[in-house]
């Protein structure tokens, strides 16, 4: 399908028009502070003007719309014969402004939740969501290492992909559903000069990203395996709080906990799923009290192994998209690039 051009001045109207039919979620300002600058989050909008398409990165990724931080799986009653029914979110959603790394992460989670046992709660949300991507010409900030992980370019996983070409967005149409969405916008055909501008963007992008990990990340699975007994884990583990922040903000983490909540009548309630973190003290402990990853260092190692080895081995692509959210949110300043660099050097 031929690309279109959407003037920036007409973008807000487009998003607002979509909001009539879908829940539109996109980047918005969460807060501003002297030391922290502007912080963004994905959130629902009814007025497209509230979207901040110039955002760098959001606190949580759009994952929260597919695997919510908290969600209800079941509703049940226990009077007489117990009854239970599944609770599904069937809202139609458009995710606006997803960056390539977050799109890549969505691709990975799609794999995870549709391989073997299919997860209906995830899939029901995912199938009803359309993604309008927004390409980026440079890393979000100095924490990002998406280039190392090869996630700053995505070829698919979106319905539309917008590229900033100055006064307008160059919009690639990847799916028919995307085309239907774009019908709600006032667009025009892409002319030669638009293609040229988009080419210029891609060239800028090429020069805009730099690798930061000194080894090629395709070797990380082997490097990690060799580092299993490295003292690096011990050293980093000492600094780690096991607070779980790294997992909880990660766009590719998908571990969860399931708990039952009763209503005050004590005869009805819900079964809830909450995202979980393998860094937490009790994550792998069983009823008898035994914990199978008791040391902080072993939990931390597990996280890095999952990100750059286990997931790669299971699904053929890296489990880390290099967005840097874990590192930005780590109070102990434990840093992925440093960690990979250290283990590569310490073998």
């Amino acid at each position, binding site marked *: 399908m031929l690309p279109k051009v959407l003037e920036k001045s007409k973008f807000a109207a487009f998003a607002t028009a979509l909001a009539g039919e879908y829940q539109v979620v996109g980047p918005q300002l969460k807060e*501003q502070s002297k030391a922290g600058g502007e912080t963004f989050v994905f959130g629902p909008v009814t007025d497209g003007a509230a979207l901040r398409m110039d955002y760098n990165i959001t606190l949580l990724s759009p994952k929260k719309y597919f695997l919510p931080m908290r969600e209800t799986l079941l509703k049940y009653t226990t009077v007489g014969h117990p009854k239970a029914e599944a609770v599904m979110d069937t809202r139609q959603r458009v995710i606006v402004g997803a960056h390539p790394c977050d799109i890549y992460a969505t691709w990975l989670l799609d794999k995870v939740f549709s391989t073997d046992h299919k997860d209906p709660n995830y899939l029901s949300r995912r199938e009803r969501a359309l993604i309008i991507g927004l390409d980026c010409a440079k890393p979000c900030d100095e924490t990002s290492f998406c280039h190392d992980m090869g996630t700053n370019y995505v070829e698919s996983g979106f319905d539309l992909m917008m590229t900033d070409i100055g006064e307008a967005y160059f919009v690639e149409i990847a799916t028919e559903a995307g085309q239907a969405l774009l019908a709600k916008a006032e667009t025009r055909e892409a002319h030669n000069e638009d293609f040229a501008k988009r080419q210029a963007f891609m060239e800028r992008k090429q020069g805009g990203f730099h690798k930061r990990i000194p080894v090629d990340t395709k070797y990380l699975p082997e490097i990690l395996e060799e580092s299993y007994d490295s003292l690096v884990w011990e050293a980093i583990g000492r600094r780690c709080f096991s607070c779980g922040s790294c997992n909880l903000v990660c766009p590719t983490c998908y571990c969860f906990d399931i708990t039952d909540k009763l209503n005050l009548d004590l005869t009805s309630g819900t079964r809830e799923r909450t995202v979980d973190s393998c860094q937490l003290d009790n994550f792998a402990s069983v009823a008898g009290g035994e914990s199978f990853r008791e040391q902080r260092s072993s939990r931390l190692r597990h996280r890095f192994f999952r990100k750059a080895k286990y997931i790669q081995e299971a699904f053929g692509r890296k489990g880390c998209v290099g967005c840097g959210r874990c590192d930005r949110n780590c109070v102990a300043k434990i840093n992925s690039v440093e960690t990979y660099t250290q283990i590569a050097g310490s073998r």
Partner: protein
Amino acid sequence: MATTAKKSVNVNVRYVTRVEGHGNIVVNVKNGKLEKCELDIVEAPRFFESMLLGRRWDEASLITSRICGICAVGHASASVLATEDAMGIKVSEQTERLRRLNVYGETIQSHVLHVYFLAAPDLLGVGSVVPLVQTHPDVVKRALKLKKLANDMCGIISGRKVHPISMTPGGFTRIPTAAEILYIKERILDCVGDVVATVDLVAALAGKLPNFTRETEYEALYCPDEYALYRGTKLITTDGAECSNRDYKKIVKEKVVGHSSSKHVSNKRSSIMVGALARFNNNWKQLHPKALEAAAKLGLKAPCTNTFYNNVAQVVETVHSAYKALEVCDELLAAGLKDETPEVQVKAGRGVGLTEVPRGLLVHDYTYDDRGVITDANLIIPTGQNLANIEDDFRKFVPEVLDRSQEEITLGLEMLVRAYDPCISCSVHMLDVKFVG
């Protein structure tokens, strides 16, 4: 009176219920003669002034709000005012408005709690609000609705009513959004009918309040711009005394009394009263017109010397707070909510924060060193100031009711204590004796 001349009465109430904190009433009448007449404070002492020593400027309001769960916003207000006074910190108009809104919230919450949950059961002849759930479900529903409104107001502005979070010297750590203020406004509007119904309810019950009067000195904070709650510019009394905030000790004088473990406060007379009635008696002219209307309906006229009418004054202040809160919401919305970061230049010095909490005048007085660490602290809590007055009331009240049964006398005394809405867990550290510095 002849029948009571030789009467002996022994009232010993261990832990007066439906008040905050542990207090005992001890009244001893022998052969018609009043021998002992005390409200003993048996709460475990908590030593807040000591706990403040060595603490940083930004911790003071967090620590002192823990003095009392019911007046937590008040303590936080007095605390930030004291720190701001000490360091010469100016706050924005927006901050002032938000703080006032917070105090209106707390005032409504506390008065509604007191009138409906603690005092009304006496007038309806039951032991607590629990039986009212069955007999007067509408009343309970209304009380909960108003309480929730007030709690939510404080929640939106400062995170929590019990121990507010975002109130800090210089302003707030989080500014509510315009949508949240609009929401508060809509919620208040939705509750106007309930406020009116509260006035009607109390107007209908007011006849049951004991007819007991005793003239005393009523003390309150005064603010030229409004009926002083959140802050004021000077202290005034109905006896015409007057002093600046920093000179509060000129009026709030403490005396050692033999029988009580707490020091008593008075000015010229043997006792002084603070609280809703004292504020009304001093500042009633500044009340919102709707509150004045309510006062007329309730038969409350200044100067009112019936202690039991403190409850009625609370209702009047509830009306006032609701309407003033509406005004403040409008002001905030008109000005638009701006993100502000509190600016504080740490400086050495002494500062005094005076505020009117639901139970009366509250004093926080700190001295800071140049690192912003507290070197001296003094806190005077309303119930502490009322103690002498309560006992003076006892002394007049008991002989007047001596012809009644012991149970009735006890109930009367308990109601009298409850009328003050005493907050005993804070009052235990209101003493001001210093040997340091």
